[in-house]
């Protein structure tokens, strides 16, 4: 089921000696410390810090921690699991049953069998329900990673995302439902509410803004919009957890002082459609590393 052309990279991660892996983990911890100190440096030094972090990120991506989650995800993908004791190998992510190459960069998309637009995570959840017999309520109970636990769906999304590494983002707008998801997502992006009157655009609608020292990509500018898509799923060194875009949307709404959006809900799908389509044409680098 997995494309032969993608094997070497995955295989290389798999055969990394255990000792190499612990060295990598140590480097991550050391760099994490540097990152914290960096945040407190003088303003003029910030660009230097940023450049150093970029170098570190480039180094890490040579032997990316995220790949460990990809390996776990592949095991989960092929294993017979759930009440129906079935694997996910027949799961159709939009390009046909079992086709993984390119699926992540061509989502969210419309799925005729359910009559709605889904992102990859929503679609994997759908397959876990229909093929394996899991219940949505159970999958949605605690869907995000914590320091103690990485939900299986997070590893699965990371694995599937890895199969689109170095491919161009091409989220489709080929039918009314997909175009509606974009229009709805755009409207949600500008929806101001809550005690602090925030919309997504309050932080992500202008160029060159920061919260504290954290740069905020402008999702309405084609030049910076890909930053909302590239690098996810991401291994967050603060806390050492793997997160997907579903988590990113959830945590943005928390900081927006909104109530909580439902897991894989239409609101989140629409926003992800808006962001993915705005990122179209950029090259997806695969699961990445976050501060």
């Amino acid at each position, binding site marked *: 089921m997995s494309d032969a052309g993608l094997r070497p990279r995955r295989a290389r991660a798999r055969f990394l000696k255990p000792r190499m892996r612990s060295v990598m983990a140590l480097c991550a911890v050391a760099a994490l410390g540097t990152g914290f100190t960096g945040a407190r440096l003088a303003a003029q030094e910030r660009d230097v810090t940023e450049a150093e972090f970029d170098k570190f990120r480039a180094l890490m991506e040579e032997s990316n921690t995220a790949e460990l989650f990809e390996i776990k995800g592949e095991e989960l993908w092929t294993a017979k699991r759930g009440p129906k004791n079935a694997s996910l190998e027949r799961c159709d992510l939009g390009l046909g049953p079992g086709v993984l190459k390119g699926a992540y960069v061509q989502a969210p998309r419309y799925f005729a069998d359910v009559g709605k637009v889904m992102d990859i995570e929503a679609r994997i959840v759908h397959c876990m329900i229909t093929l394996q017999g899991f219940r949505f309520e159970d999958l949605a109970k605690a869907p995000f990673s914590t320091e103690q636990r990485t939900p299986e769906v997070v590893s699965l999304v990371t694995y599937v995302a890895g199969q689109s590494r170095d491919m161009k983002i091409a989220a489709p707008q080929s039918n009314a439902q997909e175009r509606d998801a974009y229009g709805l997502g755009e409207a949600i992006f500008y*929806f101001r509410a809550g*005690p602090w009157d925030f*919309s997504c655009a309050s932080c992500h609608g202008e160029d*060159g803004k*920061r919260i*504290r020292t954290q740069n905020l990509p402008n999702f309405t500018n084609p030049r910076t919009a890909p930053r909302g898509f590239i690098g996810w799923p991401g291994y967050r060194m603060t806390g050492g957890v793997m997160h997907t875009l579903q988590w990113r949307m959830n945590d943005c*709404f928390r900081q927006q*002082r909104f109530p*909580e*959006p439902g897991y894989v809900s239409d609101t989140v799908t629409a926003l992800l459609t808006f962001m993915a389509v705005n990122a179209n044409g950029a090259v997806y680098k695969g699961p990445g590393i976050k501060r």
Partner: protein
Amino acid sequence: MKRAIIWGAAIAAVAVTGGCATTKDRAAYEADAAATIKRDFHARGAASMDRLNQDKLQLACTKHRDNLPMDLQKGIEEAELAKIVLPADGRFMGDWKSGARIAESGRGMTWSDPPGEASGGSCYNCHQLSPQQTSFGTVGPSLRQFGKLRGYTPETQKYAYQRIYNSKAFTPCSTMPRFGTSKTLSEGQIKDLVAYLLDPASPVNKD
């Protein structure tokens, strides 16, 4: 009333376009967005569902994507100005040291904040203030040397108090929250922040 008209128009727009979704206009998507959000979200912690009901200002800024037409601006500014409650004792200045702590704190109003704890002002998230704090955001303008540049006058004190209490009284679609109107900060906390900006002894006004 006005809201009912907007909703009516939006629903009509959806009805007219019907299945031919690609011809939907912006107002129709905006109506969809409000309805979809209300359907998809649930209350959590202090973040209750009524937070999703847009007031007149939020509706107008959403509709005009934060670029309000001139004819709407004045009315909204006046309405927001009327929501500001000035201190009964006529004093605007509190303790700048307490203000410094409030300016640093980004806590408050999220579903993960422990209920009952005082909120901060999240000032450094968006503004430069004291030169000693180099971790500051740039969503809002720099407020470094606020008093030194503007003068330590009672008028400036009153302006700073009002601006923190309800920034929308001056810039209707400002990104800055209405800290007093939303009951995020108390009168005393706002006074402390005014002192942080306008006490000559505050680090904000030192080089």
